[in-house]
């Protein structure tokens, strides 16, 4: 709908002064028929309590007529109100017929006047409300409130059971960890065999097992484990035919050498013994 401005000549009721300027109505500006009625009623310039509802109904109906003449689209609300006011007007003009049901025309008129008064009152109230000093417009709170520090008092919970469990578990774990570390000082068979295999490759002739081993033993405490593992590994290599071992007598030094490749027939010949 275009912004049509409707020039509206009121068929002014007798009680209105003649110098009243003609009402320029933009129907879009009204918030419904009650709002329009209130605007029209204000033109009567009397207390709303003493308003002439009949005059108001006439004004409203004329407004609607004028709007329809220029084919202004009116919301249904406005038309419903027009129909109701037309009905009210006819009731007000006719002599009152006493009737049991329904409110009298006077009562209906009063009710409408009250509705208008109430709308007027709430508008007045809302104006006054809006004119009150408003927060952040007229009055201001502290701009930089200071931090209220929250002091938290922690209440720690722990039971004796927690404590003992933790202690026992912790100690036990450490004991086991220590045992595990001690294991590392043991020369495993695999380690010994790998070392021996490398040795065998280097030594072509008879060599003393313990001489070589000394090179590997860093700490005296490891001597026994290194010796034992090497001996076991050496026996295994002998069994596999990789190595020959020789010992002159009990507790005398052990010699070893890589087993030389030899024909099967020579198998029984006495080996060359290492020089003493």
């Amino acid at each position, binding site marked *: 709908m275009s912004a049509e401005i409707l020039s509206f000549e009121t068929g002014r009721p007798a009680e209105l002064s003649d110098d009243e300027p003609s009402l320029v109505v933009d129907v879009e500006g009204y918030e419904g028929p009650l709002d329009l009625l209130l605007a029209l009623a204000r033109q009567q310039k009397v207390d709303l309590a003493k308003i002439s509802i009949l005059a108001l109904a006439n004004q409203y109906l004329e407004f609607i007529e004028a709007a329809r003449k220029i084919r202004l689209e009116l919301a249904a609300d406005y038309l419903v109100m027009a129909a109701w006011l037309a009905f009210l007007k006819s009731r007000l003009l006719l002599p009152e017929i006493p009737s049991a049901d329904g409110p009298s025309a006077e009562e209906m008129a009063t009710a409408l006047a009250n509705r208008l008064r109430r709308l007027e009152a709430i508008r007045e109230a809302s104006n006054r409300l809006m004119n009150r000093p408003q927060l952040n417009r007229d009055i201001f709170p502290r701009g930089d*409130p200071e931090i209220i520090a929250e002091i938290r008092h922690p209440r720690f919970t722990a039971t004796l059971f927690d404590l003992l469990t933790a202690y026992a578990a912790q100690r036990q774990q450490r004991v086991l960890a220590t045992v595990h570390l001690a294991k590392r000082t043991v020369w495993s068979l695999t380690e010994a065999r790998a070392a021996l295999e490398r040795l065998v490759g280097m030594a072509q002739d008879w060599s003393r097992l313990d001489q070589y081993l000394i090179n590997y033993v860093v700490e005296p405490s490891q001597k026994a484990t290194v010796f034992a593992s090497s001996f076991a590994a050496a026996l295994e290599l002998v069994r596999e035919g990789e190595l020959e071992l020789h010992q002159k007598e009990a507790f005398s030094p052990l010699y070893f050498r890589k087993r030389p490749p030899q024909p099967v027939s020579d198998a029984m010949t006495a080996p060359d013994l290492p020089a003493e």
Partner: protein
Amino acid sequence: MASLAEKRIADAKEHSDPQARPEELRLLEALLFASSEPLDQAALAKRMPEGVDIKVALAQLQAEYASRGVNLVRIANKWTFRTASDLSWLMTRESTETRRLSRAAIEMLAIIAYHQPGTRAEIEEIRGVMTSKGTLDVLLETGWIRPRGRRKTPGRPLTFGTTEAFLSQFSLEALSDLPGLEELRGTGLLDSRLPSGFSVPTPSDNPALRDDEDPLEIGDLELALAPAVEPESGGRS
């Protein structure tokens, strides 16, 4: 000139004579200045030394600050400092953009304030026009109104009331300080549901539900705030 200035400063020192002033006023002052939120009497009392009459102390502090640029005000039974309302001209704060409410929203807010608790239909009955959902949403967004329950009538419509933020926004100590409330009550126009002449209930933001209200249900708040178009609002703007 210098001597006059010195005299003024010396006067000020004397004026604020620490001996005569009870320590609790200092404590209250500090607490209320520091806090970003209004504090109620109980919260303040908790921080005061034993034996302090908090009511008297607050009244005294209020009297002391009444003529100052900062006043001690009470909002919904909570105390806070606010700049004096007559100094609003001074306080133009470029950064704050005050939201301008539409006329419809302002009227609706006033109706809710003066008639609360009220349903949307009751609000519309006074304004004589349907209200768009958007207007209600805008009001809910301000935080000045809240859905408070459901009316025990067919359709169980939501009832709306104002919040503490509303009181704080409009510098009202309580709902009974609403401007023109007495006149409105006197004319009997306050309650839309009653013919004039009947005794008129006072608007109340008492969180306790009235007899004709049911409590909100889970999801009611989301519903009230949802931006969805309501089918019954007939698609008007």
